């Protein structure tokens, strides 16, 4: 009831500006809402945002070279990597000092590992020298150039010094370049030799197979979702249990059962041989290849396609189909022109879900994929847990993340993200 005819801000009953008292009144509400979601926010921060951030950081992190070889990096400043001359004595002296310090802390192996990713063979040079230099008296034992080269002729290799100089910064694009089969040579970015190329193929294969899996899920899931949405409640509930049944079974059990079914001495081949469709000496190869991965993953991801489609189809009233038919449309026209367009948001939601899950899937391709049917995630897992090249694993993960976001954006442009419904 404040006086709106006077000039200036509208006042509340007690004379404070209305805006301020409104904000005060709402602040408590907002605070309470925030308190309610605080545990979840904290959880997401610790288990999702921080790890993703850490991964992004690791994919470009290169502090190790400067930390372990600070003097060498400084001394290399004046050296021209394009020259055909080795660095001068000062650089070798700095290296000796750095290596001695590093060997005492036993960190020279870490820099060895790092540089070995970029120039295979450097690791052994560093390890061998590190052991010896640890015993040197670095104050007096000059000149170092001869001594080091005598110790290991790897130090006389120009390529080695170029690698150190190239990767002396605290940030590097090296992991990312590596992840797309490139490397940073002395003359800039260059393609890796054919024998070392692997990641592009894997990335493309992952995308292609994920698309095939998503498409198979749509084709297999659509009729099921339609039945679910249109059967009488009792039958629909039974069918729903069948759809959800896989969720109640361990992923490993499901994948293993596919192994039993699909292998060459497996159930499917046995049956085909028994009914004479396939010769006994020419059994089908259904597993440990792309086909095995596609079959097993389509099965495992099918519920994620059916459920969003079902919840969207449930909202499509049967009168739409009747209306279309009463207007003269045949069954097919009524479905294609009236029902299908309304179910597209469900297909979209299911496809995004299945595709994103498929792109990052790890266990199933590892178990049934053999060498031809593994995904990029299997390589990431290899770098994280076996090879220890976390930086490369992080770069591959980041690329995967970027690709998914890009596809999401493309989807938004083409179909529109507000067209995605879960019901």
């Amino acid at each position, binding site marked *: 009831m404040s006086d709106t005819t006077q000039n200036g801000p509208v006042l509340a009953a007690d004379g404070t500006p209305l805006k301020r008292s409104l904000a005060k009144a709402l602040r408590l509400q907002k605070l309470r809402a925030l308190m309610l979601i605080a545990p979840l926010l904290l959880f997401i921060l610790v288990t999702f945002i921080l790890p993703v951030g850490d991964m992004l950081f690791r994919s470009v992190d290169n502090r190790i070279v400067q930390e372990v070889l600070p003097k060498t990096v400084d001394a290399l400043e004046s050296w021209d990597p394009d020259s055909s001359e080795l660095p001068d004595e000062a650089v070798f002296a700095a290296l000796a000092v750095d290596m001695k310090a590093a060997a005492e802390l036993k960190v020279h192996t870490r820099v060895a590992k790092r540089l070995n990713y970029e120039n295979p063979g450097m690791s052994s040079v560093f390890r061998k020298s590190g052991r010896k230099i640890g015993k040197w008296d670095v104050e007096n034992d000059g000149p170092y150039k001869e001594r080091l080269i005598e110790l290991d002729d790897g130090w006389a290799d120009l390529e080695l010094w170029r690698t150190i100089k190239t990767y002396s910064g605290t940030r590097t694009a090296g992991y990312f370049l590596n992840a797309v089969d490139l490397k940073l040579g002395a003359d800039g970015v260059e393609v890796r030799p054919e024998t070392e190329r692997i990641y592009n193929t894997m990335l493309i294969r992952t995308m292609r197979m994920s698309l095939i899996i998503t498409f198979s899920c749509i084709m297999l899931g659509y009729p099921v979702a339609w039945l679910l949405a249109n059967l009488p409640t009792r039958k629909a509930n039974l069918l729903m249990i069948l759809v959800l049944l896989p969720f109640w079974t361990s992923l490993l059990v499901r994948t293993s059962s596919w192994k039993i079914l699909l292998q060459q001495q497996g159930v499917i081949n046995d049956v085909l041989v028994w009914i004479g469709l396939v010769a006994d000496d020419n059994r089908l190869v259904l597993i440990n290849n792309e086909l095995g991965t596609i079959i097993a993953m389509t099965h495992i991801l099918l519920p994620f396609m059916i459920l969003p489609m079902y919840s969207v189809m449930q909202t499509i009233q049967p*009168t739409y189909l*009747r*209306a279309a*038919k*009463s*207007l003269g449309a045949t069954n097919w*026209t009524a479905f294609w022109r009236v029902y299908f*367009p309304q179910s597209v948001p469900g297909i979209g939601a299911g496809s995004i879900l299945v595709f994103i899950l498929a792109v990052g899937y790890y266990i199933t391709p590892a178990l049934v994929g053999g060498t031809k049917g593994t995904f990029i995630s299997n390589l990431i897992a290899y770098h994280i847990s076996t090879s220890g090249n976390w930086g490369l694993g992080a770069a591959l993960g980041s690329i995967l993340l970027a690709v998914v976001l890009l596809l999401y954006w493309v989807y938004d442009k083409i179909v529109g993200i507000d067209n995605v419904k879960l019901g």
Partner: protein
Amino acid sequence: MADASNNDAFVEFERVQKSYDGENLVVKDLNLFMPRGEFLTMLGPSGSGKTTCLMMLAGFETATHGDIRLGGTSINNIPPHKRGIGMVFQNYALFPHMTIAENLAFPLEVRKIGKSDREAKVKRALDMVEMGDFGGRRPSQLSGGQQQRIALARALVFEPELVLMDEPLGALDKQLREKMQFEITHLAHRLGITVVYVTHDQTEALTMSDRVAVFEDGRIQQLAPPDKLYEEPQNSFVAQFIGENNTLEGTVKEISNGVALVQLDGGELIDCKPINVTKPGERTRVSIRPERVEYNKDRLAEGVHTLKAEVLEFIYMGDIFRTRLRVAGNDEFIIKTRNAPDQVRLKPGQQIEIGWLPEDCRALDA
């Protein structure tokens, strides 16, 4: 049923039965004949079989037994999309992913009508329901009443001879509903189309239809024009279902000269018109419309039987007065009187005598 011999019947139901579960009949022995151009309403409580009849006519349900004919040809085995019947659904069923114009063009497209012809027809249909400017909008951007008009236009745009409407005004508010009732009737008469209209709202049925078929228990209880239906109900279900009605129970004493003398259960005697009672001793339900009851002695005819009544409640409703009485043990006896300058306003507790013309008081089945 009206005129079973009519050879010009446009829509015919002949001995139609429908069962969903093989145990119960939802529609029992339905016979219905409609001439071209008629506006017929199927009225009844939910579960009375009226919507099932409509769905059988539209082709979405198949008759378990009997024959449904359209223009003389049996349509039992013709799929819905070939029947050429326009239909307006309860929730309009406008396709949400198409614009209004696309919705209207849909029936023309599936009939492979050329683009320019199509556009002209869509425009004409939109103008017909006064929605000419709305072609580019989506159904969700329209109000309920506007969607209703579009649904109507869509059902008419391909010029069907028969249009079915399944409670089309059910979702609208009262004022809009009344407005649309008139618009639909006018449109139907102007275009000369035959309409089968389903509703459970009796006012709607009375105001819109040429004839009303009252459904109950899978059968047509009465098929008559609105005035006949209201004034001359053929049985107590129709009397109860259509309009407000007072019921008294009793036994027939004698029938002579077209007047039945009925003794009510309290002993009082009244004169009635015998409708489906034939001989003395039969139980009967007597039905009197509230507005046909008279309590002004001067206006009652000489020698008619009157009943004592006690006023229980007087409700002022503006144009009319509604008074609740206790009559022969019935506490729910209602009378309605017009708010005229000389009208007496009754007071609760007042003792009065009421009477009526014998022909307004109908002795129906018990």
